[in-house]
């Protein structure tokens, strides 16, 4: 489905819109009001909805197994020659989305398509090699 794009990112996942309360049935709306569930102060203090930088995705999701000092999964941060980017990128994408042996599959909800595009780009260019070695 996805063609790898090294220099630009073709897929964006727009943030789904909050469902308007008007879409709730009137009876449910009243019940919620009675239950207080629409009234309780639930100010959101942290939402991780915005697109994360590749290094942040790597830190949060990949590093715990793929960092050199962990060695649970293979090293994935070595740069690849440009001629191999498309093939290697497809391999990474398929592995992330479908999983492979011990590697769990990672869904769009966990790593968005846009984030994955950027992550693959950074991995192929070797930009995360220092992060994998445990350096800032």
């Amino acid at each position, binding site marked *: 489905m996805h063609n790898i794009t090294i220099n630009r990112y073709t897929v964006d996942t727009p943030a*789904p819109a909050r469902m308007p309360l008007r879409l709730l049935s009137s009876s449910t709306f009243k019940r919620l009001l009675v239950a207080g569930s629409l009234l309780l102060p639930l100010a*959101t*203090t942290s939402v991780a909805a915005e697109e994360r930088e590749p290094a942040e995705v790597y830190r949060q999701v990949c590093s715990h197994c793929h960092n050199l000092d962990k060695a649970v999964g293979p090293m994935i941060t070595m740069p690849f020659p440009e001629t191999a980017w498309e093939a290697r990128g497809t391999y990474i994408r398929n592995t992330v989305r479908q999983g492979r042996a011990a590697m769990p599959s990672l*869904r769009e909800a966990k790593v968005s398509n846009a984030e994955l595009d950027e992550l693959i780009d950074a991995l192929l260019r070797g930009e995360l090699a220092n992060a994998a070695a445990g350096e800032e």
Partner: protein
Amino acid sequence: MSTTQRILPKGVAEADFDAALNLFRDTIGSESVLTESEQLAPYTKIMMAGDDADYIPSAALLPNEAEQVQEIVRICNQYKVPIWTISTGKNLGYGSAAPGATGQVILDLHRLNRIINVDPEVCTALIEPGVTYQQLYDYIKEKGYKLWLDPPAPSAIAGPVGNTLDRGVGYTPYGEHFMFQCGMEVVLANGEMIRTGMGGIENSSSWQVFKWGYGPYIDGLFTQSNYGVVTKMGLWLMPEPPAYRPFLIQYQDPEDIAEIVDVLRPLRIAQIIPNAVVIVHTLWDAGTHVVRKDYYNGKESIPREAIERIKADEGIGEWNVYAALYGTPEQIEVNWKIVEQAFSASGKANIMYGEEAEKRGGGFEYRSALMKGDMNLQEFGLYNWRGGGGSMWFAPVSQAKGSETKDQTELAQQILGKYGFDYVAEYIVGWRDMHHVIDLLYNREDPEETQRAHDCFAELIDEFAKRGYGLYRTNTEFMEQVAGTFGEPLRNVHTALKNALDPNGILSPGKSGIRQ
């Protein structure tokens, strides 16, 4: 996707399913309704020994708000569409992010990922199901709060809500997760939303501090069940202690497990050792970083002589106890003397902490991280022990009594040996109970081995049940069988509750063997 190949929810006509999908799109946006096979691929990977064809979703829904979940279940009721709810989807070895049966629609709550509140004074949090331990950990660090989490082994990529609802455990003094849960927001099958405990009181300030509320306590009904969709959950966080001392005790003889448990039990019940202690067998302790074929490449269970070579090479014991002390330095010194005295009595134990423990070849570093709530996935190294991506957690409960532990260990080794699998196991010690966790590792790329693993797991369930041992949790392939071991009267109650709360049977049919 061609019509002839299309997967539909069981008993739902294609036209009805299309109508439901259109309403889902109206509710959460078309980009959040996944139906293409490439989009659904991540929801099909399983590690358990089931048939891949039995665990393929027909669609996945990615709501952003609890109110959208309410509307989704109303649509499901209208068209009798079954949904299988996941949060972070990292219940690896228990079913991962796959549905309970082919055709079910995945309700993926990962985008409900708000940290609504962390209170550093009463040490509580209120979060949504998509929040990962890593996300909450980062948030607490960023705020500078002196609070610890209690992650299970998949830590960073898993989340507190899903793990607690499956009654998972961690390794700090807050290791029994459901015990430290407080208050839920739940969307019922009819679309109504409730708050448990004190949450029903408008503007209550005690929702996250007082578990019981008023009247029957119902939070447990929403764990390991399919009676509602939990959209918010409160939990208690451990205040960071002034001092922390992880330690390691090694025993070398297989028979020593009985002594370990009997020495440990009074210390654990009296809270001298307050955390969820683990007693780790050689193959687990080594298996996080050692590969089986370096010691044995045969098809039988790894032989005793190979286990002895691993112990010698790695400097680990037959049984390796990882525990910790928490408190002021003075408290730790007092309790350390008690621990040393208790374990030194027989002369069999090798007791150590600090540099001496770090030099051992086992898991002291990652265990020390987990016992203080840090993020660490080193345990996933177990999946490389045999290779091939097959894993099922067989997890019977036992009393914390040496005689019982010895019986369970021998029975497990006998059945695993019959099928050619290794005893890769640990005991997690609660207050009076223990979770005997065995990772049945196998090569899932080999159909014969996969079938053998399936047969082995089924026999383990039955044979343990015959001796009075039940499982605390299991994977989707074996939920029906495990439910059967707990008897029909209990199952009838579960069914009656299901019929009352979800008469159309739309919520996670088959979860824990519960269906209409």
